[in-house]
């Protein structure tokens, strides 16, 4: 069998190995790239000290998962114009929030818990990530993450810090069928509510100024106040003075109904107040009887420590206080209702008032006295309508500015409560170049291994099926295979076939023994090999002492010389000198006449000459 | 001589000759192609955008500078140029000289252009050397001016220069475009007050002698106004140093060096010679002069000069707060 030569096996299949490795590497690269994901991550930290107790600034539970709530994501989808392209749920499912715990604090917590003490610690630093597919790209991942956090910061502030909204409650009131008085009341109430919210903002941060609108909450409050004092008041006074109404009867009945409702609710309130007073008395009596009220102001609770005791941390109202507040609230609503009724009466009286100029006609008419007899009524009414429209426009613009300022403030507060520790960074889930390189080397090793295995298997098969084990030349089966492969081809110029037959092998086997015969065969093998040397020749042992040498790149004279050398070596041998060997040599070549392999072989057989080696 | 050379040597010489001629041919062909491409490319102008910051700018302000048109046409009656200027929506338009080859022969051309520009935005016109040559019959350097007016250093009166009336100025102003000859004009644009000053005698020898007072009025009065200084040639900035020339300075004249070679820069100007930027010349683009931006336009002329890598340009300057 041939020697184990790695390079020979690899060299044989080298082009295939290279092409296969390159193609397979490319396929792997393509698969990895297309299944790769881009993960954008950002680190955020809640600055408020309540966050470490798992609480938001309002004392409610801090739920970080709000970052990926549908409220936030739907806004993101809207903002990025992805409606119809991506569903909110599909984006939510790709967001991941991982807490980063402070190890020192965790150790502290564990230590405290072991001692039986309470220690509340929740992580306040989180990694927020969003995964995008390779088709979407790194840019998409980063953008979605940025927008999500933008919206979340704003919503966080709205929900937990800057709670009261500053909404436009008077939008389109002129489109509804309100009377002038009702519209003015709504405007006044709306401005009042807005001012309350604005004053709260001013308390939080008097000098905060929006960069988008260029105004502060103070300025907005001043603007609303100015409008109220000047334009709202002016309109009110005109409406009162000229009894301007769309429908007097409807207006009067509205206010009358209001008075009636107040009366009914007051009667109800009276009942509730009585019950509450009864309850309060009973409560105090019971507390006294039980001795729970017998405590002095010097009583000290030792084990109760409250850090940073604020005015209000959670609801600490006791039952008795709740009763007292309930009494007060019901009494207050009753008294306010009485005042409101007085106001309604004032409005009714104003619109029912008759100057006498109409001759009492207004009492039985749907029109007011002024409408009936004052010639200025129409122009004043037009004036009021125009001024009202202008006021609503001005208020709309102001509300718009307020909303923008408030929104920006929410973003500002959000950013002050939640800080970014690390900007969005994008990493690929799979290091494509690295894995491709590894795959390439792996494939090369695999292919080379395969080539070695295939080559060695070939050698083994050749040895088993096509090698003569005595001479280690190719065997008869190989010759048959060879001839079959050359059946349809003509041999090129320079092909020389040489036959060497040991003519008296049978006699030698019989005379001396088979072993001696084998040794003679081996000796012939050796000398033939030696004679042919490094020429490119196929050696075949055809059995029964018959050797065939196939040289495809030689000529007759060269082979004849080789055979002469062979005969010389045979004659000068030292082994089996006593045995007379008779042998035949036949040589044939293709020269200027291309022949088939079989024909050439036949010619070589024909050209056989006998020789003997007697020493 | 040939008969003493070996065949191999002869072959080498032939090969070398062939190579040399081949290289020359290829280089010539390349040069012709470059020139042709430049010629075709120069049929159109490009826009060059600059951003300038000034805290005096309450809101964004856009200035368009046209320079060195030399009576060229872009479309019928410069329709293409005007249309593009209009699309860019400037707040102020400034022509920094040499818009015509001759103020006498091409006055109608200039007036027509001025009329169209002034319909788009407030427009200003500063004289270049071509206008000066055709209007004044003497160069505007200190010696000639002194001689013309009979002034000495002690009794110079710079207002005398402005008293010389010229019909070109009248024609332009009638068309709606303001001519600035050592004078400033103040306009209100987008709630901002902008002072635009145009220099008539940009020759360094006569600048201080005949423009000092008007120039100082421009830069020191109402210092809160945004100051734009327009002058045809940039030589006064090369020659003199001053702590404040304006918030924005605009120049032309150099035609961007005509040919611009990569790495080396502008190749040649008449006054600066070869590679003028290397010797401190202000030739093309944006420079910093006393901490404020100076922009030198390469001009709009596309005939009579061979521009290589130097397309005619329309300069658009956006001024903002920061």
């Amino acid at each position, binding site marked *: 069998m041939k020697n184990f030569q790695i390079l020979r096996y690899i060299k044989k299949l080298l082009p295939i190995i290279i092409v296969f490795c390159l193609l397979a590497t490319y396929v792997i690269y393509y698969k990895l790239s297309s299944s790769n994901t881009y993960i954008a991550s950002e680190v955020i930290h809640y600055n408020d000290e309540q966050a470490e107790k798992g609480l938001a600034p309002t004392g409610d539970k801090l739920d970080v998962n709000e970052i990926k709530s549908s409220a936030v994501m739907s806004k993101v989808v809207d903002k990025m114009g992805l409606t119809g392209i991506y569903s909110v749920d599909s984006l939510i499912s790709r967001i991941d929030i991982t807490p980063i715990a402070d190890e020192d604090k965790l150790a502290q917590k564990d230590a405290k818990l072991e001692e039986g003490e309470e220690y509340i610690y929740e992580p306040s630093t989180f990694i927020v*990530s969003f995964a995008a597919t390779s088709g979407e790209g790194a840019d998409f991942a*980063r953008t979605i993450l*940025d927008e999500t*956090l933008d919206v979340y910061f704003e919503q966080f502030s709205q929900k937990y810090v800057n709670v009261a909204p500053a909404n436009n409650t008077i939008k389109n009131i002129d489109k509804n069928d309100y009377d002038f008085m009702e519209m003015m009341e709504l405007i*006044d109430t709306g401005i009042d509510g807005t001012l309350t919210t604005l004053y709260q903002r001013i308390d939080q941060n008097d*000098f905060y100024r929006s*960069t*988008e*609108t*260029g105004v*502060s909450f*103070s*300025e907005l409050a001043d603007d609303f106040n*100015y409008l109220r004092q*000047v334009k709202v008041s*002016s309109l*009110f*006074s005109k409406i*009162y*003075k000229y009894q301007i109404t769309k429908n007097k009867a409807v207006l009067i009945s509205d206010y009358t109904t209001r008075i009636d409702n107040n009366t009914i609710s007051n009667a109800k309130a009276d009942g509730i107040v009585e019950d509450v007073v009864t309850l309060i008395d009973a409560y*105090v009596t019971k*507390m*006294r009887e039980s001795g729970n009220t017998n405590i*002095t*102001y010097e009583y*000290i*609770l030792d084990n109760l*420590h*409250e850090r*940073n*005791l604020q005015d209000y941390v959670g609801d600490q109202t*006791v039952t*008795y*206080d709740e009763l*007292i507040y309930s009494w007060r609230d019901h*009494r207050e609503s009753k*008294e*306010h209702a009485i*005042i409101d009724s007085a106001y309604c009466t*004032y409005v009714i009286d104003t619109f029912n008032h008759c100057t006498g100029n109409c001759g009492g006609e207004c009492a039985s008419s749907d029109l007011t006295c002024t409408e009936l007899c004052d010639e200025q009524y129409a122009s004043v009414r037009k004036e009021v309508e125009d001024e009202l429209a202008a006021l609503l426009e001005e208020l709309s613009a102001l509300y718009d500015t307020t909303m923008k300022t408030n929104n920006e403030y929410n*973003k500002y507060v*959000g950013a*002050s409560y939640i*800080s*970014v520790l*690390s*900007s969005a*960074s994008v990493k690929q889930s799979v290091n494509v170049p690295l894995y491709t390189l590894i795959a390439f080397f792996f494939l090369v090793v695999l292919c080379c291994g395969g080539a070695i295995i295939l080559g060695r298997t070939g050698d083994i098969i050749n040895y088993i099926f096509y090698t003569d084990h005595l001479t280690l030349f190719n065997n008869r089966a190989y010759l048959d295979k060879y001839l079959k492969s050359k059946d349809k081809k003509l041999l090129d110029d320079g092909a020389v076939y040489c036959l060497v037959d040991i003519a008296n092998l049978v006699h030698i086997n019989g005379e001396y023994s088979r072993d001696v015969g084998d040794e003679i065969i081996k000796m012939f093998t050796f000398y033939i090999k030696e004679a042919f040397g490094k020429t490119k020749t196929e050696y075949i042992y055809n059995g029964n002492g018959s050797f065939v040498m196939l040289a495809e790149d030689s000529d007759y004279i060269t082979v004849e010389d080789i055979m002469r050398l062979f005969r010389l070596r045979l004659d000068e041998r030292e082994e089996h000198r006593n045995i007379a060997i008779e042998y035949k040599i036949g040589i044939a070549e293709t020269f200027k006449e291309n022949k088939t392999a079989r024909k050439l072989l036949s010619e070589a057989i024909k050209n056989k000459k006998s020789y003997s080696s007697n020493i | 001589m040939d008969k003493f050379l070996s065949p191999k040597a002869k072959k080498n010489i032939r090969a070398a000759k062939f190579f040399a001629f*081949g290289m020359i041919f*290829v280089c010539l062909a390349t040069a012709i192609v470059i020139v042709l491409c430049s010629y075709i490319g120069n049929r159109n102008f*490009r*826009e060059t*955008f600059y*951003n300038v910051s000034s*805290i005096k700018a*309450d809101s964004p302000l856009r200035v368009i500078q046209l320079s060195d048109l030399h009576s060229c046409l872009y479309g019928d009656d410069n329709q293409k140029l005007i249309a593009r200027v209009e699309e*860019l929506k400037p707040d102020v338009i400034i022509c920094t000289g040499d818009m015509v080859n001759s103020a006498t022969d091409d006055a109608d051309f200039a007036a027509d252009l001025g009329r169209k520009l002034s319909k788009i935005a407030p427009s200003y016109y500063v004289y270049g050397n071509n206008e000066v040559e055709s209007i004044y019959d003497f160069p505007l350097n200190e010696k000639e001016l002194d001689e013309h007016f009979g002034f000495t250093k002690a009794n110079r009166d710079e207002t005398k220069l402005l008293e010389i009336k010229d019909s070109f100025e009248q024609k332009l102003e009638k068309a709606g475009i303001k001519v600035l000859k050592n004078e400033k004009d103040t306009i209100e644009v987008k709630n901002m007050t902008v002072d635009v000053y145009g220099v008539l005698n940009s020759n360094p020898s006569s600048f201080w002698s005949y423009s000092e007072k008007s120039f100082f009025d421009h830069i020191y009065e109402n210092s*809160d106004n945004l100051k734009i200084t327009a002058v045809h040639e940039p030589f006064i900035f090369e020659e003199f140093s001053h702590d404040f020339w304006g918030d924005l300075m605009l120049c032309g004249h150099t035609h961007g060096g005509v040919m611009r070679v990569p790495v080396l820069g502008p190749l040649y100007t008449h006054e600066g010679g070869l590679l003028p930027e290397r010797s401190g010349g202000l030739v093309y683009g944006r420079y910093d002069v006393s901490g404020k931006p100076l922009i030198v336009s390469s001009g709009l002329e596309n005939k009579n000069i061979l521009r290589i890598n130097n397309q005619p340009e329309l300069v658009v300057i*956006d001024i903002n707060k*920061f």
Partner: protein
Amino acid sequence: MITALLQKLIILIIGVLFLVSAAIIYFRFKNVNRTEAAQIFKTTQYFNAWLILLCFVVTIVFGVFNHFELKKSVHAIISLNYSEASQAQNSNGTRYNMAEIICDEVVDKAIEKGALKDVTTKELRDCLVVYPCVQGGVGDESEYHISTEFAVEYHASKHTSHLDSENVIKLITSAYKEYYIENYTDNFGLASEKPNFDEMEYMDIAAYFDKETLSILNYLYGMAEKNNSFVTENNTTFNSLAGRVYQFKETQINQNFRSFILQNGIVRDKEAYVDRLSHHNKNVDFDRQKNGVSFDLCNQAIDMYSEEMTRVVLVPTWDEAGKYYMGRTKVGIDELSVLATSYSDYVTSNEKEIMDNNLLIDKMSAGNEDSGLHESVDLMADAIYDSIKGFEKEAIKAGREYSSHKMNQCIAVSIYGISIMNELKTLVLFAIFAYAAFMLRVISKKFPKKV
């Protein structure tokens, strides 16, 4: 598109030529022995005039297409120079969002500024990419990084190939800067339009002046809170400027203007104004009654509170400054007392408002509509308005100087167009590669097919 195809085609042809020649040499190498092969390589004429010329021409052609291709891509670096950038915030304290650099609003603005034709916002936006120049990681605290420099890349597509790439990127960065300044930098300013004083009552004009000066004061105090030692070019601080405005307000507006109107009963439409004040007083009176009732009820509730329920306990407590003290538990009367106090304040405020209005009513009623003082009051109003505008201008200028000093130009942009050196490098490499391919071809022809 065509230039891209041609550029790639040239590279492909040269590449194929190189590979094919190399393959031919490889396969025919076995047809010669080593000595013959060495001889072939030795005898090859490496300096071939034809080949050099051909290589030169091919390189020039490639260079032209390459140049046009490179021109389609350009990038810029945007650096945030203000201090808040290092905390990933905008200069107004809100969270910085890098995606805004190429948001639709910015792209729209760029298209408008450049009057770019035949391109939609989406088409242009699709050609832009923005990413941080340096990005950190989230694995460990040492990897955390806040990006303050961002790269914007523009790669022309078939929809935008007609645009000048360098101009596009300049417009985008300029539009972004403008967008940023509009939205995130100090934009203080009063209403630009002067109200029509002829249609306003004089007291309303005074109220208007009051409002405007308060606006300026609020701005100046806000700026002083940020940095009260900042000195402007005119050697003023925000506080000193605020002091002057305050003094003006107290003296010119409140003392001079308002008092003059009040004492002389100067009014345009006496009846309407008095009516207005009367009705306003009526409304305020209702509020006063409500607040008064609330106050009384709080007091009654305190009286009702059983003394036995007021017993308290003391609790060891820390205050906000970390100091230890004995706090007492709160009871309902504490809150009722606080409420009662605020209602009392409201009542007082309402009563004061009513009294002030009554005074106005008295004065205006006694005044003469045709007193002839209107002209002088109108002049005073115009003068005060001009002064307020002057203060506004000063305040804006001071604010802008401060912003300019603090923001350090806010955003700096560097544009990177085509680098001539990189182009030359590419050309040289290509020339070498092409020449190698041609030489290999020549050499491969010298190797025999088969002996």
